[in-house]
């Protein structure tokens, strides 16, 4: 099983590397994450910021298909005791949030996320689900959104975001990503 992430994509598929490390931490399977120093994995497909192969023979391109592939392969791990329908709205919101540069649009989405967490620790139920990872990835990918969360006007969301950052699989995901970025920079500066 493998995951491939385009390092220079917009948006970067942070949530997919979180899914992958979450699987690895569970011990259910091992997914190797590869990083490519490109804008898109397939120039003909503008959704191809990420690709996953969980069956050993078929690559799925794009965030939407990657989420579906993880959910299909590891339903219990990514849903816990919850219904697939309960994570779907958050997956959709995350997909809209990650690429948005519209301040009003971003603010509305952040308010919606923040309100949901007034009385809740996690987005769905009482254990981590794919909803949390999708939203976490969207915030990592969107500087405007992450910046607004840091300024403290969405303190429920900020609290949840800090919790997510302390969880091992996601810390590992970020670490691997940063290493890949640094390695690609180094390669460039030492080039001919």
């Amino acid at each position, binding site marked *: 099983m493998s995951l491939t992430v385009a390092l220079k994509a917009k948006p970067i598929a942070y949530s997919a590397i979180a899914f992958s490390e979450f699987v690895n931490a569970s011990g259910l399977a091992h997914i190797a994450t590869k990083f490519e120093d490109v804008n898109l994995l397939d120039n003909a497909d503008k959704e191809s910021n990420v690709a996953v192969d969980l069956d050993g023979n078929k690559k799925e391109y794009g965030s939407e298909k990657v989420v579906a592939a993880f959910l299909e392969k590891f339903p219990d791990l990514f849903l816990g005791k919850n219904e697939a329908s309960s994570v779907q709205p958050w997956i959709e919101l995350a997909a809209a949030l990650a690429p948005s540069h519209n301040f009003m649009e971003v603010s509305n989405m952040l*308010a919606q996320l923040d309100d949901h967490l*007034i009385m809740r620790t996690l987005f769905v139920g009482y254990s981590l689900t794919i909803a949390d990872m999708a939203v976490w990835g969207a915030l990592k990918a969107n500087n405007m959104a992450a910046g607004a969360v840091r300024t403290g*006007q969405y303190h429920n969301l900020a*609290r949840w975001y800090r*919790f997510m950052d302390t969880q091992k699989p996601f810390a590992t995901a970020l670490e691997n990503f940063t290493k890949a970025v640094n390695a690609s920079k180094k390669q460039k500066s030492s080039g001919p």
Partner: protein
Amino acid sequence: APVNALFKAASEKKPELLGSNDFEKAQVFEWTTKAFSSANSQEILESLNESLMNTTFIAQDAGITLADLAMYVHLHPVVSELSAKEGYKLNNVARWFDFIQHQEAVMETAKGLGLELVALDLNAPKIQRP
């Protein structure tokens, strides 16, 4: 004293329940001690609500400590009595309590202690934003 015995047992069997640095350890000790004190529960509710505004658990962001467990047991009777409106007002405590009471390890122990699941209304009114 029960707190000292608890800390000794935890440090031998589950040191991760005591916090991962000095600050967290101090927080764990402070809140666990409070949970075993005769301090007014209403006052504890309010100070805990403020303390939990920016953290997921009482002493740290990452996970449950002894302080969460002790406070959960201590506050169970008062949280059981909160109206929906009071729950919204103490939203940080309510959110934290609901999460703790649904953790599998806690649920097993709670059963043994006769602590029932408290039904909390999670649909607080939205925040008014400028």
